[in-house]
C-alpha cells in the first residue's frame, strides 16, 4: 500500500497519467485522434523535441543550460542542406555523420567556455546562440535551400517506414534507449548527476566537474546536429530562421519533466514525458478547436505548476546542537528509516 502511494507520488508517473488523460480527453472529443496512424504521426512530430530534450537534460543535470541548441540545429541543418544541394551524389549517411560531428563541435565550443574559462553557461550559450544563428545567414547569404534542390535520398530517410513507424520516430526511440543506458549503466552517466547534485562532493570524489559539464554540452550539441539534418529533411527546407526560439520549448520540456534546474535530479522518462506533453499540446489541441494562443497559455501555466511542484519545502530544520535533540533525532530517524520502503535502483 505504502509503496503504491510512493510510486504514484513519483513525478514521472504523475506526468504519465496526465499525458494519458490528455489523450483520453482529446480522443473523446475527436475520436479520430485515437487512430493508431494519428498517434504515430503526433509522436513523429514530437521526435525532434524529444531528442533535444534528452540532450538538454544532461546539460541541466550538471547545473548548466544550453540555449544554443536550436541555433546549432539550424546551422548544421543549413550546412548539410547546402552540401546536399552542391554535391547531390555524396551519400546521405555521410551527411548524417557529418551533422552529428559538427553539432558536437559546436557543443564543444560551449562546453570549453564553461569548463576552461568558468563562464556561466547561460551567458556562453546566449552568445553562441546568436553567433550560430548569424553564421547561417553568412553561409547562405540569406537564401533558402528548397526541396527541389535536395536529393531524393536526403529527403527520404526520415520518412521511410520500418514496422509501420517512420525512421524519424525510430531515431528518437534509439536516443531514448541510449540515454537510459548511459544514465543507468555507465559510470560516466552517473557523473552528470554527481557533478550537478553536489559539485563539492563530486570534487572530493575525484570527479572533474568542469569536464563532466563539457561532455554534457558535447552530447547535447551532437544531438542538436543530428536534429539539424532531421529537421531540414523532414520539412524539406533550410533557412536562417529554422527552429527559431525552439530552445525554449526544449528547456520547457525538461522543466515540465522534473529535471531540476538546480542540477542533479531528473530522469530520462521525465524529459521524454515532458517533451511528449508539449508535443501533444502543440500538435493536437488544434484538432479539437483550441486556439494557438490558448495552447501557449496552457504550456506556460504547466511550466509554472511544474516548477512549483519541483521546489522542495523551503523550511529548513535548524542545526542539531543540543544533546537531547541529537539523541531524539537519532531514535526518530532510525524508527523512520526502518519502515522506509526501498526506492531508487
Amino acid at each position: 500500500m505504502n509503496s503504491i502511494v510512493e510510486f504514484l507520488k513519483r513525478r514521472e508517473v504523475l506526468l504519465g497519467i496526465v499525458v494519458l488523460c490528455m489523450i483520453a480527453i482529446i480522443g473523446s472529443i475527436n475520436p479520430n485522434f485515437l487512430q493508431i496512424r494519428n498517434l504515430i504521426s503526433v509522436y513523429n512530430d514530437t521526435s525532434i523535441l524529444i531528442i533535444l530534450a534528452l540532450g538538454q537534460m544532461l546539460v541541466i543535470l550538471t547545473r548548466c543550460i544550453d540555449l544554443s541548441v536550436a541555433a546549432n540545429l539550424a546551422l548544421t541543418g543549413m550546412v548539410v542542406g547546402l552540401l546536399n544541394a552542391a554535391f547531390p551524389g555524396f551519400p546521405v549517411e555521410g551527411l548524417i555523420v557529418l551533422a552529428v560531428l559538427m553539432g558536437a563541435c559546436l557543443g564543444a565550443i560551449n562546453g570549453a567556455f564553461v569548463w576552461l574559462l568558468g563562464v556561466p553557461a547561460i551567458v556562453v550559450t546566449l552568445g553562441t546562440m546568436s553567433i550560430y544563428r548569424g553564421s547561417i545567414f553568412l553561409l547562405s547569404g540569406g537564401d533558402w535551400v528548397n526541396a527541389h534542390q535536395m536529393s531524393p535520398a536526403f529527403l527520404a530517410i526520415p520518412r521511410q517506414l520500418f514496422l509501420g513507424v517512420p525512421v524519424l520516430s525510430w531515431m528518437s526511440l534509439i536516443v531514448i534507449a541510449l540515454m537510459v543506458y548511459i544514465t543507468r549503466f555507465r559510470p560516466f552517466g552517473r557523473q552528470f548527476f554527481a557533478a550537478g547534485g553536489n559539485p563539492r562532493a563530486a570534487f572530493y570524489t575525484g570527479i572533474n566537474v568542469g569536464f563532466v559539464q563539457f561532455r554534457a554540452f558535447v552530447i547535447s550539441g551532437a544531438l542538436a546536429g543530428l536534429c539539424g539534418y532531421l529537421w531540414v529533411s523532414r520539412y524539406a527546407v533550410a533557412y536562417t530562421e529554422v527552429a527559431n526560439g525552439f530552445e525554449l520549448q526544449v528547456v520547457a520540456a525538461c522543466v515540465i519533466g522534473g529535471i531540476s534546474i538546480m542540477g542533479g535530479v531528473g530522469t530520462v522518462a521525465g524529459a521524454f514525458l515532458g517533451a511528449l506533453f508539449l508535443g501533444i499540446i502543440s500538435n493536437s489541441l488544434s484538432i479539437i478547436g483550441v486556439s494557438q494562443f490558448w495552447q501557449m497559455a496552457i504550456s506556460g501555466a504547466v511550466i509554472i505548476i511544474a516548477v512549483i511542484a519541483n521546489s522542495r519545502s523551503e523550511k529548513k530544520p535548524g542545526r542539531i546542537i543540543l544533546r537531547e535533540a541529537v539523541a531524539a533525532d537519532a531514535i526518530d530517524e532510525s524508527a523512520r528509516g526502518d519502515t522506509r520502503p526501498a526506492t531508487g535502483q
Partner: protein
Amino acid sequence: MESTSPLFALRNVTKVFPGVRALDDVRLELYPGQVTALVGENGAGKSTLVKTMTGIYQPESGEIWYDGQQVTIRNPEDARQMGITAIHQETVLFDDMTVAENIFAGSYLTRGRFGNLDWKAMNRRAQEILHDIEAPLSPTAMLSGLSIGQKHMVAIARALSVDARVVILDEPTAALSHHEIHELYELVRRLKARGTAIMFITHKFDEIFAIADRYTVFRDGAFVGDGRIEDVTEPELVEMMVARSLNETYPKVEAPLGEEVFRAEGFSHPTEFADISFAVRKGEILGFYGLVGAGRTEIMRALIGLSEQARGEIYIEGQRVSVRSPADAVQAGLVYVPEERQQQGVMLDMPIYQNISLPQLHRTSRAGFLSTRNELAVARQYGERLNVKTSSWSELVNNLSGGNQQKVVIAKWLATHPRVIIMDEPTKGIDIGSKAAVHAFMSELVQQGLAVIMVSSELPEIMGMADRMIVMNEGRQVREFTRDEATAEAIVSAATGVRA
C-alpha cells in the same frame, strides 16, 4: 618506545593563504594500528591539514611521506587510490542518490566486457559493509531521508569500501547520539585491529582519552607537541592548546556601566539551544565564547528574529518588545553585524555610500526620491568615524579589504543609532591593523553608552575585550566569567566540556 615506524608523516609542511600561514612548518606522524588525536583550538589549522592530506590543497613546501616513500598527493582521487580517506566534518555526500551509490560514487563496481554498472553487486556489497559497521540502513534508501548520524555512517561505509590504510575522522561525533558514538568507537577499534592508521580530530577531551593512543597539538597553524596519551593529562593538553604569548594588547578601555539596556529571557529552540537568558548594561561588552557549532550564532539569529522556531522574550530598557524580523530588531535598536560578512553583511557590487545608507533610505530620501547627496553625507559622517580607508565613498565595497568591508558594515548599523550592537566574529579574516581598529572602535562605542554583544572563537579577543563572558557548550550556557575571574584554561575547559 615506538614499535613501528610511521605509516604516514608530514615534515616541515607549510601552507599559505593570502595573509595567513594556515600551516607553518608543521609535522605529523600517524602509526599503523594506532589512533592519533589531533587537538587544537578553532583556527589551529586542523581543517587545512586534512585538506592537504587528501590532495585538496597543495602545500607550499615540506614533505609528505607515505609507507616509507616521499609522495605527492595531487588531487582527492590520488589520495583515495593511495588509501588515504577522510570523513569530513560536513558530510560531503550526494543527497539525491541512494546509500549504495553514495558508497561507491567515483569507483563504481562494474561487470562484463563493457564495464556496465553492476547495481546488484553494489547493493549487495553495500549491504555487507553496512552490516559490518552495524548500521541499520538499506542500500537502496535515498540519502536525503537520513539523519545526520546516519549520513555519517554512510560516509564511514564509503571510506571502508576502498582499502583505506589511513582514515581521517574530522570531528565525526559532533552530530552523533551517545549510542552512535559508541558504535563509532567500536568501528575505530576494528579499524585499528586491521592495522589502519587513524587520525581523530575532536574538541571533546573525554573522547581523546577514550579512544586515542597518541596526541598531536596544533596552535595557530603551528606544531606544538605530540606524544603518547598515557604521558599527558587533560590540564596539560588544555595548556598546550591555549598557551600563547599574551603580548597581544587590546585597546580595552573601562567604560562606566549604566543601567540594563537589553535582556533576553528563556530563549530556546527545539534543536539548537535551550534556556538562554542574559542581560547587557550600557557601556558593557558581553562576550560569547564557545567552539564552532556551540550554538552562538544560532542564538544571535534568534535574537534578531531570524529563527522561526525559537521562543523567548526580549526586553529593551525594561520594556518587552516583540522581535519577529530583523526590521523589528533594527526598530528596537538591536543590530547584528554577521559573521558571514560578504554574504550577509555587505552588497559587494554596490558603492560604499549605498551600503551605508541602505537601512534608512526613508530618512535620506526627499519627497520619496532618493537623494544621493544625503546618502553621501551619511556615508561620509559614519565612514569617517570608522576610518574606512578608501579614495571615494562611491568605491565598490568589493574593492575594499576585508577589514574595511567590516568597517562599512559597522558604519551602516551605527548610522541607525542602535542601542545594542551584536558583533559575530567581528575580526574573522581581517588583517591585524583593521582588527585593532575594530577593537578600538568597540571601546569607543561602549564609552558612548552603547552595549556590545560580541561572539568570538578567539580566546585572546574574548579575554582582551569583554567585560563579562558567557561560555557555551552544545547549545547551553555553561559558565559565566567576569573579566577578573577568567583564565584561558578555565574558559577552554568549560567550552570543551572538561570536568572541572
